[in-house]
């Protein structure tokens, strides 16, 4: 555990190299992940972070005091989306977060939704 801050190994660890990601997810692949989590699924915390939690889980609970998308969580944690999806799935399983459903447009979106987006854009 001697720190050697500039060598390749620690660089890989700090920047989300495979070893660090393996540890964060406990080595789980897609099996630990709910299939309905999308980049723009909004996540909201329903409980406070607990001291014994894995740091990444605690971070998600703290940053999702207000709704936050999966993509934003990935950006702030500097972790790949698939890793965040596993972490959020863990929190969903213990009911410490809830997710707000993504609008899944099967084909062409609903005209009323499109009108709302247009109205919002026109105000920019």
């Amino acid at each position, binding site marked *: 555990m001697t720190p050697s*801050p500039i060598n390749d190994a620690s660089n890989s660890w700090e920047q989300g190299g495979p070893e660090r*990601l393996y540890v964060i997810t406990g080595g789980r692949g897609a099996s630990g992940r709910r299939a309905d989590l999308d980049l723009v699924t*909004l996540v909201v915390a329903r409980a406070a972070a607990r001291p014994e939690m894995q740091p990444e889980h605690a971070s998600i609970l703290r*940053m999702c005091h207000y*709704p936050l998308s999966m993509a934003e969580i990935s950006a702030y944690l500097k972790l790949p989306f*698939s890793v965040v999806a596993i972490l959020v799935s863990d929190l969903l399983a213990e009911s410490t977060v809830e997710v707000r459903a*993504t609008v899944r447009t099967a084909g062409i*979106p609903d005209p009323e939704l*499109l009108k709302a987006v247009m109205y*919002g854009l026109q105000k920019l």
Partner: protein
Amino acid sequence: MDSRSSELAVGPTREDALPASAATAVKIVVVGGFGVGKTTLVGSVSEIRPLTTEETMTEVSVGVDDVRGVEQKNATTVAMDFGRISINEELVLYLFGTPGQQRFWFLWTGLFEGALGAVVLVDTRRLEASFDVIGRLEDGGVPFIVAVNAFPDAPAHPLDQVRAALDLSPTVPIVECDARSRASSRDTLLALMRYLYSLSIQSAAPMAASAATE
């Protein structure tokens, strides 16, 4: 220097937080080649400084034929910049700028499947880079418009010429855009929304629906 713990105390600043009432999020994908101005466009209209999400090729490569056999230690990280526009108290629009290569699109679950539509951002000096993207969006049934980013040092081409060069369907809108300008980038998104709206009205008419979506 010990950033391990402080690094984890991260998240949006108070002004970058969404209202508690935010309930629905939609997305638009901005597709284009390297350096075409995707992030510039996203940044011009975003209410937050553009953020970056990333994915590693190995994490979701299981079952995807063309990357099968890639070893975990050879993980390749691919980044995607994105921004956000709060439409109203409940509805949030996200804009993702993604590379044109299709192999990246599978990295993020439902990047296109759940999107309202796409803006193909093109540089007239490198039109050939857009052929693949346009073909793949057509094949995937993703509605899109084409926006020609006006680079100061690029020769100006009439949009009709660009349309012909791209062999674009006559129904697909093509617009000029200055990705650096908030108003121009907003108008580009509005052009996409108007096109989607026209498609949604058409698909509400029973006979026109199958031709538009198949």
